[in-house]
C-alpha cells in the first residue's frame, strides 16, 4: 500500500447536532481528513476542532458526563484552533446570558458577551445575505456576500479588545425595538478561536470551512511536531457491525 500525503486531521465534536453537515463540507476541502470526535483519544488526534450547532445544554451535559470538558479546556489551552457555530459559539464565549436555570458548562476563551436565543423562538429564525469579510477565501466562490442561516441563533452583544469582528448583522426595526441594539456581531475571531452565530454547515458555501482549515494549517505548520498523526480510530471497531448510517441531508 502506498501511503498518501499526510492529511490535516480536523475534528468535529460529534456529541449532538449538525456534526455530519460539517463533516460533509470538510470532505470537499483537499488535504483535509475530517474526524468525528466523541472521546479523549479522538480529540487528541486532531489539529483543530469544530463545535457544531445543536442544543448547547445537551452538548454540555453529554460532554460533562464523560469528563470531556477538562479535555476540551486543555485542547483550547494547547492553542489548537477551535471554531464554534451557534451552540459552539456559546461554548467558547466567556460570558453568556439567557442560559437555562442553574447555568451550563462553558469552555470559554473568547472575550465576548453572548446572548442565547437572541432572536427568540423558531418563528423568528431566518436567513439572509451578509457581506463577506476580506479574510474569507475567494477561491471556491468569489461573491462578495455569503448566505447566513440563523436558527434560534445567539448573538454577540459585546466584544473585548483583541476580538476581530468578521461579520455584523443589522437588526430589523422590529428587532431593534425588542432588543435595544442597532446591530450585533455574528462572526468573530480571536487568536486560535473562530465563532459564528449562523450555520455555514447548512449551506453549499464552504468558504468559512476553508478559512478555518487555513487557521488549522497555519497552527499545524507552526507546531511541526503535529505531523506524526496517529491512525484514525475506527468508530465501528467496537461493534463488529457495518455502519448503517444513511447518507447526508441535502442542502437547501
Amino acid at each position, binding site marked *: 500500500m502506498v501511503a498518501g500525503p499526510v492529511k490535516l486531521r480536523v475534528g468535529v465534536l460529534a456529541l449532538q447536532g449538525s456534526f455530519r453537515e460539517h463533516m460533509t463540507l470538510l470532505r470537499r476541502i483537499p488535504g483535509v481528513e475530517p474526524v468525528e470526535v466523541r472521546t479523549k483519544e479522538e480529540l487528541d488526534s486532531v489539529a483543530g476542532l469544530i463545535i457544531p*450547532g445543536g*442544543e448547547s445544554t445537551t452538548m454540555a451535559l453529554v460532554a460533562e458526563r464523560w469528563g470531556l470538558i477538562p479535555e476540551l479546556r486543555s485542547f483550547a489551552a494547547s492553542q489548537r484552533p477551535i471554531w464554534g457555530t451557534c451552540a459552539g459559539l456559546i461554548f467558547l464565549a466567556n460570558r453568556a446570558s439567557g442560559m437555562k436555570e442553574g447555568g451550563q458548562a462553558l469552555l470559554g476563551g473568547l472575550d465576548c458577551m453572548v446572548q442565547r436565543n437572541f432572536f427568540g423562538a423558531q418563528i423568528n429564525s431566518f436567513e439572509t445575505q451578509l457581506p463577506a469579510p476580506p479574510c474569507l477565501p475567494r477561491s471556491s466562490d468569489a461573491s462578495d456576500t455569503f448566505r447566513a442561516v440563523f436558527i434560534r441563533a445567539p448573538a454577540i452583544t459585546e466584544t473585548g479588545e483583541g476580538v476581530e469582528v468578521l461579520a455584523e448583522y443589522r437588526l430589523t426595526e422590529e428587532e431593534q425595538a425588542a432588543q435595544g441594539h442597532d446591530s450585533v456581531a455574528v462572526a468573530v475571531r480571536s487568536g486560535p478561536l473562530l465563532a459564528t452565530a449562523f450555520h455555514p454547515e447548512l449551506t453549499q458555501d464552504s468558504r468559512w470551512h476553508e478559512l478555518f482549515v487555513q487557521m488549522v494549517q497555519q497552527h499545524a505548520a507552526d507546531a511541526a511536531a503535529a505531523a506524526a498523526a496517529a491512525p484514525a480510530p475506527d468508530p465501528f471497531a467496537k461493534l463488529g457491525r457495518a455502519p448503517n448510517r444513511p447518507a447526508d441531508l441535502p442542502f437547501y
Partner: protein
Amino acid sequence: MAEQQRGTQAVKVGLAQMLKGGVIMDVVTPEEARIAEEAGAVAVMALERVPADIRRNGGVARMSDPQMIKEIKAAVTIPVMAKARIGHFVEAQILEAVGIDYIDESEVLTPADDVHHINKHTFKVPFVCGCRDLGEALRRIAEGAAMIRTKGEAGTGNVVEAVRHARAVQGAIRQLQTMDDDELYVYAKEIRAPVELVRQTKALGRLPVVNFAAGGVATPADAALMMQLGMDGVFVGSGIFKSGDPAKRARAIVQAVTHYNDPAVLAEVSCDLGEPMVGIDVREKGFKSYAQRSE
C-alpha cells in the same frame, strides 16, 4: 443589506438538523420540562396527557391548552414542540401564534380530517409528521413537513412497531437505490409519492429531511437500537415520565443516543434505572392502533 427571510425550507429543516443525535421528550408540566432539560433533552413536546394516559382514558384527544404550553415555554430554554390534530389547521394556527418552535401533526391525537393533512407550506413554523413507510414519509414532505418521525405505536412502551416502520423506510430506500431511473415513475405511483421526491431520495440515499424514531422507545437500549437502524434521533413519550425514576432514565437515554455505537457505554448507562413503564403487547385483542389512523 439583503432582506431577512423567515420560514424558508433551510430555516425549517435547519432546526431539525440541530436536533439530530438528540432526544425529544414528552412533558405535561413545567417541572417535567425542567427535568427533561436538565437531563439533556434537545427539545420537549408539551402535552396535557402523555400517550399512555390518552390510551387509558380514551375519548377525543385534542391540542393542549395554550396557557399550559406557554408555561412550559417559559420554564425552559430548549425548543418546545406541541401537537395538533391531523388536518386541524386552526389548531396549528393557534400553536404558531403562541410561538411554538415545532408542530407535530400527530396521529396520537384524534384526527380532525380523515382525508387531508394540513397544508404545511402555508406556515412559517416547521412541522414534523409521522410515517410508517417511504410513501407516507414522502407524501408528508410533499405537504411541507420539514421533519419526519416513524410512527411506532405511542403509549405502548413496545418498540416493535417503531422498528417495523424504521426498517420499512430504510429498506425501501436501499431498494430504491438499486432501481433504474426508468423504473421510478411506476415505483412513485405504487408508493403514492411524488416522483420528484422519489428521485431526490434515490440520489441522496436517505429521506430529504431529518428522520427521528418514535412510538414505543422505553429504554436506553431501545433508543440505541433505533439509532443503529439509521434514525437521526428519538422521541420518547410515555417511556420517561411513566417510569420509576424519570430523571435518571432521561439522562441514560440521552447518553445512549450519543454513544449508540458503543455497547460498553450502553451497558453502563443501562444499570439501575428502576422500573420501566409497563408495556402493551400490540398483538393483544382489542389493541387500538394509532399508526393506522392516517396514511
